[in-house]
């Protein structure tokens, strides 16, 4: 009942991509699930896909996501599959420098080897675009890349993802999508003063999210989270950006939906919904109102 109903409505709300077959097609799907497009493309200025340049305002300064097209000079065309794997799984550049966690590798590290390889296979099929990277505009001490080493020492835990014993396959799939690929926690989990995720309040929302905006609590807490939402409500939001009252999300969540989550299969969206219903509810009021 839920599935048929939610899916029928969802089909009306957005177009739908089928299941991937070849490795590169599988990679294309993971690319959507990972939300790579919205950060690495300067959509607001009609920038070429994945050629970089989008500004990401954070409390530590402004980051400009780099060119990840296969252009040999300005993109990652000269990289090997191993370089790519190291970037996603360890947060290290081919020369061994630390990446800033504005690149959500603390989540991507949880990806399986197979998925990282498929993503790489897909990226190599894309058109190369020549577009030089813009340097980040950061405040001290974060301007010093080596400082990221300390951050990683404190907060970075290398993957890959390990399913919780006792979780059903469906909930494990949901956990993998939420934590490894779709990196929901990068926005929805509050951070401490050093910018490390507060794992005890996983997905409990924050008033200091990306672009200085607040991000709602999406744990199943009845009053302050989304405990009142049905699985169908969650699927609808991820597929179309419409909340249960049909008001739409805006800002960074709207981008995540439009360029990424809306492409996911119904099975995957239902898995995410089941997982979000299974995590511990946390009392943390973010939204205005009583």
């Amino acid at each position: 009942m839920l599935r048929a109903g939610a899916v029928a409505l969802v089909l009306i709300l957005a177009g739908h991509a089928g299941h991937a077959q070849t490795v590169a097609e599988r990679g294309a799907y993971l690319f959507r699930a990972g939300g790579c497009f919205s950060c690495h493309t300067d959509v607001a200025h009609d920038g070429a896909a994945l050629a970089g340049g989008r500004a990401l305002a954070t409390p530590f300064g402004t980051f400009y996501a780099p060119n990840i097209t296969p252009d040999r000079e300005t993109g990652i065309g000269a990289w090997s599959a191993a370089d790519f794997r190291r970037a996603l799984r360890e947060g290290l550049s081919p020369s061994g420098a630390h990446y800033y966690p504005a690149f959500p590798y603390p989540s991507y590290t949880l990806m399986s080897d197979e998925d990282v390889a498929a993503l790489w296979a897909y990226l190599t099929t894309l058109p190369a675009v020549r577009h030089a990277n813009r340097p980040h505009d950061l405040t001290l001490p974060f301007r010093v890349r080596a400082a990221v080493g300390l951050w990683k020492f404190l907060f970075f835990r290398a993957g890959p993802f390990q399913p919780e014993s006792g979780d059903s396959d469906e909930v494990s799939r949901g956990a993998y999508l939420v934590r490894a690929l779709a990196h929901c926690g990068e926005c929805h989990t509050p951070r401490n003063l050093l910018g490390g995720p507060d794992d005890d309040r996983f997905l409990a929302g924050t008033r200091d999210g990306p672009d200085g905006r607040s991000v709602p609590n999406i744990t199943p807490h009845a009053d302050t989270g989304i405990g009142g939402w049905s699985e169908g409500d969650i699927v609808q939001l991820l597929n179309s950006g419409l909340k249960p009252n049909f008001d739409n999300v805006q800002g960074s969540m709207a981008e995540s939906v439009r360029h990424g989550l809306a492409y996911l299969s119904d099975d995957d969206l239902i898995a995410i919904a089941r997982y979000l219903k299974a995590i511990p509810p946390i009392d943390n009021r973010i939204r205005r109102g009583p």
Partner: protein
Amino acid sequence: MRIAAIGVLSGLALSASTLVTAAMADVDSIKLRRAVMGSIATHMGALGPVAKGEVAMHDEVPWHAGSIARLSAHVVSLFPEGTGEGDTDAKPEIWKDWAKFEEAAANFEKAASALADAGGKKDQAALGAAMGEVGKTCGACHDLFRKPQQ
């Protein structure tokens, strides 16, 4: 409790002159339009589970759907010139590009009228389709004319 709150608002909105008077006297256009938007959203939320097939078709569906259509006719009048400042998420673009704003409101009104038809017939499939269409018009207007929530 929830139903009562919606009832008061739709009752208020049912009388077009109440709204127009309130807007003209600038009683508090901002509060009023936010309450009306909230009321539209509450009616939509009441229909959502039926549209998704989570709750069976029931007797209040025509009323919710009809209320949305009636409220939709007043959206434009809730944004008088000079009410862009204060406790509001309305973007100044509304008054800079009034024709476009009116068009967004007209699209909503049209979709809401189809929703009222589907709701009136208590046709679950048609309701689902009409909700999807209305939902698109809400988002289309918000994306252009409402600031993202802080």
